[in-house]
């Protein structure tokens, strides 16, 4: 039974991840990413990591992907110029991709698979994967890493606000806002037209 559940989750997650890359329409790519996250949450549940599963859905599918969908839906109808890489990028790109793959593989093989070959979920400690257990890990064992990560996010948020404020320049008058609204309207038109062709 658990094998069946695992393979459903794994095939779904891998298939959706492939679809993210393969699909041409950015809106569908984002939707595929959402589906991928849902299947991944299923695999987490199978690993008794219920808190991780829930936070994956709440944070990623519920908040981050909503922003992605928002952006993709607005700009989705506009033809995107085909990517034309410079010769240097054509060489460096694949090298970086392979290097990243090797680094992640080393990290995973070096630590995460230690549980392979053990009896499995029958002898996990009580309360494993609950919010309490995760909280203890974050607040006791990995406090510094946890606080450093939150500091990093705070810096990123402040930087985003500063950058957005600088780009806006002078305080937007009414005309500025109207321009934005008109643009949104045009994009909605373009999106609708794009849908019609797709159907």
């Amino acid at each position, binding site marked *: 039974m658990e094998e069946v559940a695992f393979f459903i989750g794994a095939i779904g997650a891998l298939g959706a991840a492939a679809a993210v890359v393969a699909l041409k329409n950015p809106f569908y790519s984002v939707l595929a990413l959402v589906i991928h996250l849902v299947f991944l949450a299923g695999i987490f549940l199978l690993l008794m*990591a*219920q808190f991780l599963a829930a936070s994956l859905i709440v944070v990623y599918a519920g908040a981050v992907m909503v922003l992605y969908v928002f952006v993709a*839906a607005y700009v989705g109808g506009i033809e995107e110029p085909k990517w034309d890489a410079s010769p240097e990028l054509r060489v460096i790109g694949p090298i970086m991709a392979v290097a990243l793959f090797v680094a992640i593989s080393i990290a995973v093989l070096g630590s995460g698979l230690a549980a392979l070959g053990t009896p499995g*979920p029958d002898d996990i400690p009580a309360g494993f994967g609950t919010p309490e257990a995760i909280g203890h890990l974050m607040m006791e064992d990995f406090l510094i890493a946890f606080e450093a990560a939150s500091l990093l996010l705070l810096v990123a948020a402040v930087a985003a606000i500063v950058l957005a404020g600088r780009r806006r320049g002078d305080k937007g008058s009414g005309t500025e806002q109207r321009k934005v609204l008109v643009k949104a309207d045009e994009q909605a*038109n373009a999106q*609708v037209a794009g849908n019609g062709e797709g159907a």
Partner: protein
Amino acid sequence: MLDLVPGLPLADTNFVDATWIMIVKSIVIFLVLLQIVPILLLVERKLLGRFQQRYGPNRVGPYGLIQPLADVGKLLSKQAFRPKGAVPFLYELAPALTIISAVLTLAILPFGDVKGDVGFYGIDVPIGILYFFAFSSIAFYGLLLGGWASGSKYSFLGAMRSAAQLISYEIAMGLSLLGVVLMAGSLSLVDIVKAQGEVWYVVPQIVGFLIFMVAGFAETNRPPFDLPEADAELVAGYGTEYGGMRFGSFMFAEYMEMLIVSGIASTMFLGGWMGPGPGWLDPIWMLFKMWMLCMFFIWIRATLPRFRYDQLMSFGWKILIPLGTLNVLVTAVLVVTT
């Protein structure tokens, strides 16, 4: 403790009862709340009528009591029409998605403690309230896909509004509940109700309760925050191109979500199933509290006009979120020091 499916070690779900009881329970919970939705619909229309100095529906049956049945009959017999510009599969998927996620959330509402061998709730998961947030964020994709896939400008704008509304209000909603979680020391809804034996959390967490209710109006797209379907500007927002029972599903899900938000508010702040009287009254108390909060939703709908869109956004980001953060901070300090 028994697993739902023997051999499938899904996360620890605190099951106290046998599998067949689980199935019976889910059917009972679903059927009871399914019956409440049409009653709520009728009561809302009747009350709105009275609020506006008119009678409301009074033609079908005595006092118009059979009106919801007539409505459902009409919706079911309509043609399932799809506009030319709509995206085929997603257009049909959207209403189903909203309704599935709404019904799944019913599982965590507790209607009573464990009595004998039966827990008076669907499931009692340790992640508790996060389950509610997870499914409400999936419900959003129903609205978004509905609006996007309809191929209509009004639907699209409605969907975009609901996306912006969601990201502004979900954070405030989470923060408002965090105070309760800190005080109860648990995320499980059953434990949270049990922790309210002495005093309901609406007293110490009044700020959290108010924030939760405001965010709840935004979450359920109810007036005065019904901007995704603002009928004066967007025809019917994400639901413009839907007809028949697909429209009915969106409608049904909206009322189901109203019941769920009321249920979560009763559980987190109003003592859940607690009330005077013998133990068998517990589910009735819970339903009574949910019902009263639903009446509050209707009352607000009849009282307040719709907000403007930028007012809604700045209210969420500039008032509710800082207030919620402050509430959590004060609660945390008090919980640690006392």
